């Protein structure tokens, strides 16, 4: 079993008392089962900033790290009969460069807009989902791609729809001992096009005030399929069934989207924007997205 377990002498690195770096998924699962209190580490772009933030006030995260970045076979984007499978270590940069069908354009656009190039080179899509921030840019496009999250754990493997995987602000359905091992993206409907629009207060390195994603199939001037999602306007990004229904069977007209279609959102006031603004901006962005995809 190729793994490194190092008990730390305390040099300049308090609070990180053990570090596990398995090379196979089996080892990773075994280690996690043995020490379910570990914090999983992939690209570290959420883990390390959170630790730095806590340290400012001498509050430290002492959980041992289970670094999955060395696990073989998790960094692939592969096409399957059912669609695509993105391994847990697939980064934003990989996604940005991948040749994927037009329905994935929103997801790839999100990949271009996450953080800066450094974060894109390291941050993983699954880390983004497991971190479960309401403002995670990966969530809305993946909701519109009807992504499933493949989980592996002591009880075997299961696949949860993304909406069932994300339970709340920083809460997921990961059970103790479970790892997210891949995303499954079903083959999108024929003719589907995807898009993503992000709104922030500066041009690079910005957490979204609000963002929207959509996948539309427009045939003969009529919307045949519509999937829309909004992020940063509720604890978990949401699909908007009312808005989707309003578009179906009619020409792709942004004006069909009405404020009441966004009733399910529950935005908050924070340093970035007011709740009322978010609610308003979500509708504006959705309309622009429909216009863009029409």
């Amino acid at each position, binding site marked *: 079993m190729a793994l*490194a377990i*190092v008990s*730390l*002498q*305390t*040099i*300049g*690195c*308090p609070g*990180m008392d053990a*570090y596990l*770096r398995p090379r196979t998924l089996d080892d990773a699962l075994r280690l996690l089962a043995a020490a379910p209190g570990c914090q999983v*580490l992939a*690209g*570290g*772009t959420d883990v*390390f*900033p959170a630790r*730095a*933030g806590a*340290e*400012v*006030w*001498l*509050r*430290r995260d002492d959980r041992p*790290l289970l*670094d999955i*970045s*060395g696990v073989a076979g998790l960094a692939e984007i592969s096409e399957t009969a059912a669609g695509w499978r993105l391994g847990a270590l697939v980064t934003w*940069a990989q996604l940005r460069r991948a040749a994927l069908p037009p329905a994935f354009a929103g997801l790839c656009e999100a990949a*271009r807009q996450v*953080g*800066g*190039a*450094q*974060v894109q*080179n*390291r941050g993983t899509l699954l880390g983004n989902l497991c971190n479960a921030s309401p403002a995670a840019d990966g969530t809305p496009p993946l909701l519109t791609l009807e992504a499933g999250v493949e989980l592996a754990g002591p009880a075997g493997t299961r696949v949860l729809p993304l909406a069932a995987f994300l339970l709340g602000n920083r809460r997921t359905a990961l059970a103790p001992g479970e790892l997210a091992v891949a995303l499954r993206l079903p083959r999108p409907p024929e003719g589907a096009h995807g898009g993503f629009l992000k*709104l922030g*207060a*500066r*041009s*690079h*390195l*910005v*957490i979204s*005030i609000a963002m929207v994603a959509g996948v539309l199939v427009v045939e003969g001037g009529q919307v045949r399929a519509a999937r829309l999602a909004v992020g940063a306007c509720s604890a978990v990004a949401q699909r908007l069934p009312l808005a989707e229904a309003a578009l179906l069977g009619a020409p792709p007209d942004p004006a069909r989207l009405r404020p009441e279609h966004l009733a399910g959102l529950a935005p908050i006031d*924070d*340093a*970035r*924007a*007011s709740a*009322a*603004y978010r609610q*308003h*901006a979500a509708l*504006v*962005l959705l309309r622009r997205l429909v216009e863009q995809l029409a």
Partner: protein
Amino acid sequence: MIALRVNGTEHGVAAPPATRLSAVLRDHLGLTGTKVGCDAGDCGACTVLLDGAQVCACLVPLAQAEGRAVATVEGLAASPLGAALQAAFQAHGAAQCGICSPGMLMAAMELLASTPRPDEAQVQAALGGVLCRCTGYRKIIEAVLAVGRASVAPPAGAVGESLPRLDGPGRLDGTELYGADTAPADALWLRPIRSPYAHARFVIGDATHLPVRLLTAADVPGRNGFGIYPDIKDQAVFAPGLARYRGDCVAALVGERAAVEAVRWDDLPITWEELPPQGAAAALSGPALHERWPDNVLTTGRLRSGEAAPPATHTASGEWQTGCVEHGYIEPEAGWARRVGDQMEVFGCTQAPYMDREEVAGVLGLAPAAVRIIPSACGGGFGGKLDVSFQPLLAVAAWVTGRPVRAVWSRGESLASSTKRHPASIQASASCDAAGRLTRFAFEGLYDTGAYASWGPTVAGRVPVHCMGPYRVPFVRSRARAVLSNNPPSGAFRGFGVPQAAIAQEMLWDQLADQAGLDRLEFRLLNALRVGDTTNTGQTLEASVGLVECLEALRPHWHALRAARCSTGRRRGGVGVACMWYGIGNTGMSNPSTMRLVLAPEGRLSFFNGAVDIGQGSTTVLAQIAAEALGLPVAALSLVLGDTGLTADAGKTSASRQTFVSGRAAQAAGAALRDAILLRANAGANARLTLADGVLRVDGVALRLDAPLEGQGSFDPPTVALDADGQGLPYATYGFAAQLAALEVDLELGTVHLQRIVAAHDVGRAINPMLVEGQIQGGIAQGIGLALMEEYLPGRTENLHDYLMPSIGDVPAIDCILVEAREPLGPFGAKGIGEPALVPTAPAILSAIRDATGAVVRRVPALPHRVLEALREQRMGEALREQRSGVAS
């Protein structure tokens, strides 16, 4: 042992696998060229290449670098591409303070390796993860685009030439040492303990259970207080029992680093009693923060000018609010201190070594002469490193432990504890006559000065003098009050309160110009100060008033930009204009500087320059001035830079004073040494000097010396203190400027998209045009931040993820126009530029938003939701007016 390859060399590192790669490089391998600004991926200063891909070294655990290739700034020069990139940065002035440069360079390397001839958009995408607070990014973009293109040889550095920074190379190869880059090997580690509450009483109990020492108020050997003003030492090194803001220092852990870092918050023997905090408005009628100021008013600055206002036809008034703005230097506070017998040495980043010396001496109870301050390279300051931070803490710790002690603030700590730009609430009104001539201006400013005095009195003093702007106004009543609150101390930040005031003043002018039916630029031109005018402090401006030239230079751009405005669809274009003036140097008080040149018998020519270059370029500019006055090329000078043990007091690097004040001293020093040489050589005034191979020649004849020849120069700008009505001669000279901002507003989202800034600045004389442009572009970037995105909220935007400063994509193309209305008092006609650059930007942006939409933004930062609110109010107002006129007709 974990093995990795750094710049081609194999290393085995014995460190925990979770150690951040940035710490491995810096602490274990001694490669301090990689900088740390946040440890959170937000600043990009730590950018290195991992197997060719740019990553934030602070987010990479050592284990993940195992067996991989790491490239850092130290390895750049070894590759032709790296060397070419460094050369381009140097030639284009792309590094100012240089703290972001290693990250910028590495990010650019990733790009250039795959895309040798990138376009601007590609450069922005590749460098978007690195923040720069100094340059405004434009010269960085220029430099990356220039790699591989023909370059011109740099000039020799005569006055007026764009000599590349003398201190540039060390900032581009990672060798320059900043506050966190070096310390004695046996130094202990210090970690301040700060109040998490904006207002709290606390009791510190027995700390003997801690594995390290806990320093408290009782350990301060001298006065437990510091502060900018000699008679206001109100901020304690360690607060004795009462914390007045979130971030107030109450104690410090000192010991071996690992032991200090292992201490948890819950281990601390501190019990807190939270008290209700108050902001400035509430403080006006609330309980006193300090006994000394029962009404919480720290200072009131006033100006009364004119007996009665001339009759007016048009009047405008309004209220504005500005946010709490962080300096955002990318280098957090860092340094070390060491006790040497009964003396103290402090090394670290600072803007004001002599003031630091006073403070350290005070808290130790020593004479200033017993303290030596050795400034490190300073990774940005902008006013924020004028106050002491680590200095008194480290000095106390080193004094009581007898060991060297070092400290590096984390970003969160830096944000929580450091001073800020004063948030201001301003009410102002103004009138003009039918022809558009200003008749009166009234200003009432409430400046939230936070928990301690810091530079509050300076701000309250500067604002009333500047708040009517560079215009002829016959009747002015202005008052600015600095009010204490439980917010972070507001201190000195580029412009000392004037940028906030300029917003109100310029917004009123726009309204008056519209009412008077005048073009907004022409309105300003009509009212602009000119040579011979008397200001509202009663000072007659005898020379160097270049505002009219600035506005005239902008006029063609103004018309072109206005003609190009788009006004279709959901975006509306607008063009704004704003002016400013700025008194150079301290307000109505002495602020001398002394410079010295020494020619040793063996031919070494030393320039002793005590001015701290915080990135603005004084090291280069002062050398150009001294060399020119002496009559030798800059290359002949050996530089001895700011160290209170070696150089004379040049005063602090603030108030845009170094080029003007220290420049004039450098000019005098150069002239004095020249005189001494000519006297000794018995040569005429026009004799030609050369210095080669250690031999000085006068008109070709070698001059033999048996003792050093010296030239010393001092300058203290002539001023007269202001009286109770703000009358006097506050400054010896003023900088003037006017800027245009062209932008588009998204009417549905309230987002603002900048397209171009045109900046015309009267700098007296541009000693080094490239460095002047760098100051202007950097100041504009900070003005953009003030206008559109920056707002520090304690506990909420306490990191660079949530506290947004402009990134590379937020600064549009900038045209700089340098106007040179020579200042007779200044060195070769020069005056200052550091602060003036920032002042007009925010008002020009707000002016453009109003031009685009009609909406007056009354609260900055103009975040999208605030712009949208302003748009709604404007529409409601219009609808109401229409209704009313409908009823009337």
